[in-house]
Structures are given as C-alpha cells and as structure tokens.
C-alpha cells in the first residue's frame, strides 16, 4: 500500500519526495491541453498547484511566451518532468 512504511523503496521515492528532490530545479510541466511550461520549480502543493520562475510557454513544441513567475492551477497538470 502507499502508506506502507515498511517498504523503504516506496517510502523514500513517493511523489512528495520526488517533489522535494526537484525543488528549485528546471522542470517541464505538461498540461492536459498539451501546452508545456518550462521553468524553475518554486513550489508545489497537494493539489499540484505549481509556482514556476523564469517560465517559457511551449505550444506545439514552439515557444510562445516568457513569464517571470507563473501559477499553474493543479487540475490542469498532466505531469511534472525533471529536466535532466
């Protein structure tokens, strides 16, 4: 189960530890609409609301806009990807 604390592999690599791992790092957020936002992850909450810094907006793989700070409402988020 997700709350199985006796499973070290799961306990140390669940979604919240992944988020703390990528805090401040460059990431890509893909929305359900297909639009992508690339920026530095400032914060995330339990709704997957996301605050990004130095953000670039990509529509169909082409950069459309640049923003200093953006807030993305969590219900639109498909995935958060670490840019490695």
């Amino acid at each position: 189960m997700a709350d199985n604390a006796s499973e070290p592999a799961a306990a140390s690599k669940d979604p919240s530890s992944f988020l703390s791992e990528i805090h401040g790092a460059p990431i890509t957020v893909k929305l359900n609409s297909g639009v992508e936002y690339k920026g530095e992850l400032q914060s995330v909450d339990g709704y997957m609301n996301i605050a990004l810094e130095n953000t670039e907006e990509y529509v169909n793989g082409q950069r459309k806009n640049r923003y200093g700070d953006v807030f993305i409402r969590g219900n639109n988020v498909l995935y958060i990807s670490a840019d490695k």
Partner: protein
Amino acid sequence: MASQILPLELVDKCVGSKIWVVMKGEKEFSGTLVGFDDYVNMVLEDVTEYDGSGEQVKLKKILLNGNNICMLIPGGFGEENS
C-alpha cells in the same frame, strides 16, 4: 476474504518494475514505477509518452497526475502480462 488483495497492493507490487499506464483519452505512458500515493499519482522513471498520433516522447523522470489515469498494466508498453 481475509486474504483478498486490495487494488493498491497490486500497484505496490509493481514498484521498481516496468508499468504501462493507460490514461483517459488517447494518451499512454510506459516506464519504471518509482512510487505512488493514495491518489495513484505516480513517479515514473525512463518514461515513454505515447499520444494518440503515434508520436513518442522520452522523459527521464516524471510525476504523473493520477487524475486522468484509467488503467495500469504491470510490464512495459505492449508486453504480455505474465
């Protein structure tokens, strides 16, 4: 009935191995399951994203929102379930 396996226990058995995620709509993901939570938000590694048009995108490590997940299949994309 006492020995019944809960659905999420089945998912937990897949941690560390390949899994195939079918979303609502056309999208699918295949990758190694790193972890998940009670909402079945999933951390996946060495991911391939398949959209409906046959295009594939490779991703190193992602947190996939559980909201639009429809089905999980142990093993990678297109593999027969053992």
